[in-house]
Every structure is written in structure tokens, then in C-alpha cells.
């Protein structure tokens, strides 16, 4: 495998940074909702989840721009139909992650509880929508559903990558590897 066939370093860094953040956020969301019963700890985790969520949203927007700008294109090394499936999955991952973050932000914005989304350097994210309890609950439900679907897609994405690495041995993982 020659080095030129790898994704550009910027693309690889963006990939692994968002991969780590997304997995972390899925796990955090699942744990804080289902297993953390002390309100004080839960409050802190929710606050972190919201702040990190906005960071992931920004990160994904950068990746979309990056991809549309052509920094993330690479000639296919696999059969056409597999490549199309992979690209379809990538688009799905982008769309789901963006939707997850946006719907989460919308739920926070419409919540009757005016809790700031804390950003670095003392900034706060503005509420985009007026408080609306029913709407906020709908957004929250959608947030949970999208999270489950994204989790399944991430699992499919990882399974496909491992299959190509271990079974097809086509060097796919090496193209995205940082090492």
C-alpha cells in the first residue's frame, strides 16, 4: 500500500476525532439517561453532553464542507457496488449525526427549563426556539430514536471496515489509519 493512496491527514484526523466524539456521546447519552439517578451528577453530565454536542455539530459541519470541497475524495479500491454502499453509508452517517445534534439542540432550545449551553471562554449558545414543552418532548423523543439508528449505522460502518480489513484485505483500514 503506498502512502499516496491514503486519505489526506486532515481527513483522517477529522474522521477519528469525530469517531471518538460520536462514540463517546452515544455512550454518555445512554448512560446518563438510563443509569445515573443522582440528580446532581446527572445535571453535570447533561450539561457536558450539550456542550460537547455543539462541538460535534460544528465538527460535522466542517467535515461536510471538507467533503464537498473535494478534500475527502479518493479513487475507489473496491468493486463499484461496494463503493456505492460505503458512500451511501457515509452520507447516512453524516446526515444522522447532524440531525442528532440539531434535534438535541432544538430540544434544549424549546425546553421550558432555561438552561444555558455552556461554551468555552464564558460563552453560551443561544436558544434558537421559543420554549414549548410539548415540542421539546417531541424533539427529545426524536433525539433518542435517531441516536439508536446512528448507533446501528456506526456498528454497520465498523463491521464493514473490519470485514474489508480482515476478510477482503483490501487495505481500507490502512487508508484511514493515523499510523
Amino acid at each position, binding site marked *: 500500500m503506498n502512502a499516496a493512496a491514503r486519505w489526506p491527514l486532515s481527513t483522517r484526523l477529522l474522521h477519528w476525532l469525530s469517531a471518538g466524539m460520536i462514540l463517546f456521546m452515544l455512550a454518555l447519552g445512554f448512560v446518563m439517561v438510563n443509569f445515573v439517578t*443522582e440528580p446532581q451528577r446527572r*445535571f453535570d453530565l447533561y450539561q457536558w453532553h450539550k456542550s460537547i454536542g455543539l462541538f460535534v455539530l460544528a465538527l460535522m459541519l466542517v467535515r461536510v464542507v471538507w467533503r464537498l470541497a473535494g478534500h475527502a475524495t479518493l479513487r475507489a479500491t473496491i468493486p463499484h457496488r461496494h463503493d456505492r454502499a460505503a458512500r451511501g453509508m457515509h452520507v447516512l452517517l453524516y446526515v444522522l449525526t447532524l440531525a442528532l445534534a440539531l434535534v438535541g439542540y432544538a430540544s434544549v432550545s424549546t425546553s421550558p427549563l432555561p438552561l444555558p449551553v455552556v461554551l468555552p471562554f464564558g460563552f453560551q449558545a443561544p436558544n434558537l426556539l421559543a420554549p414549548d414543552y410539548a415540542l421539546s418532548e417531541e424533539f*427529545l423523543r426524536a433525539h433518542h430514536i435517531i441516536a439508536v439508528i446512528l448507533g446501528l449505522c456506526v456498528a454497520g460502518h465498523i463491521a464493514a471496515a473490519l470485514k474489508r480489513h480482515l476478510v477482503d484485505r483490501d487495505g481500507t483500514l490502512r487508508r484511514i489509519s493515523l499510523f
Partner: protein
Amino acid sequence: MLSGETGERGKLVKLKQGMSGVLCAALSMLASFPETHSRAAPSAASIDPARTSIEFVVEGVGWPRTKGHFSSFSGKIAVDLQRPEASSVIFRVTAKSVDVGSPSLDDYLRGDAFFDVAHFPDITFASSKVEKVDDHHARVMGDLTLRGVTRSFAVDVEVETPEDGNKDSLRFRATGTLHRLEFGMNAGFPVISNDVGLIIATEAEAATP
């Protein structure tokens, strides 16, 4: 009695200086009762913070029950077992001493969405009426001021004599439900319930006949 008559009078004078109208008038009246052996005015003794707790609990939707307490407060209690209606209580709670076990959540509760401590540093309660229910229960009605809004508020009080045998020392456990919307504390409703349970435990000396 905690101390001699002079001390009690001194306390009453101090108390009068720092108290609101209704209670002041009530206590002046008490103080002006003839000091007979059978009808001594109940002494208004400061509560002992070490033996007092002010706790609250609030339910949420999709949010665990949140319990907290206030760590800074002062108050006076006058208890007369023979004439429960002559008993009285005042409390002044420092709003910013709210403690739910998380500095970040405490800070949030101190903000304008909830206690707004910058504008309303104190939460106060002054009893206006004490009714005996039975030998171990009473109902205390009064005015509660929260976020600058005063509303009538009542608590049910359980009275116990501590097991150490000191008949004059009484243990109280007051419970009541506060409807926070009445005080303009609307944030988070209905995710966070309107009903806030209050549990106040304290001890006091009863007036001796």
C-alpha cells in the same frame, strides 16, 4: 427556660428590632402579658443551626427526584404547650446557601431562573397562627416570602419529646408543600414540578409553667 428573665427580655428586644410587623406586634403582646407563674410568655429562643435542617424535594418528568437543603439560616421559636396559639416561629433562610450536592447545579439554582439570589437574598417565614391538632401535632400558618413574593403557607408539625427525658426540650418536624409557581418561580415547569416538598426539623425549649 434557657436563661434568666433578663436574658429573655434582652432577646425579645433584639428580636423586635429585626422583625416584620405582624410578628413584632404579636410578640410585643406576648411580652406585655403579666408575668404570673402560670402564664409566662413563651420565650422566643434562637434555633440551633446544628440541630436544625431545612430540606426540600422536587419531582421532575424524566428527571430524578431532586433533594436539597439550605445550610445558612436563622430563626426564633417560642413554644407554649399550655397555649399553643401563643407559640410562634420565624425563619430567615439565606437563599444562596441552597445545596443540592453539585456546585454547578447550585449555581444554576441561585440564578434568575430559580432563587434569583442577587435580587432576593432571603427566604423568610413568619407564623401568624399556630393550631394544636392533638398532643403531638400542630398546624402552623404564616407568610412565606420567596423571590420577593409573599404568600400564605402552612406546615404540619409533628412534636416529639426527645428520649433523653428532658421534658422541656421538644423536637419538631414540619412538612409542607410549596407551589413554586405562586412565587413566580416558573422555570422548568412542567418538567420540574410545581410542588416542592419542604421538611424542616428543629428543636426548641418549651416554656415552663
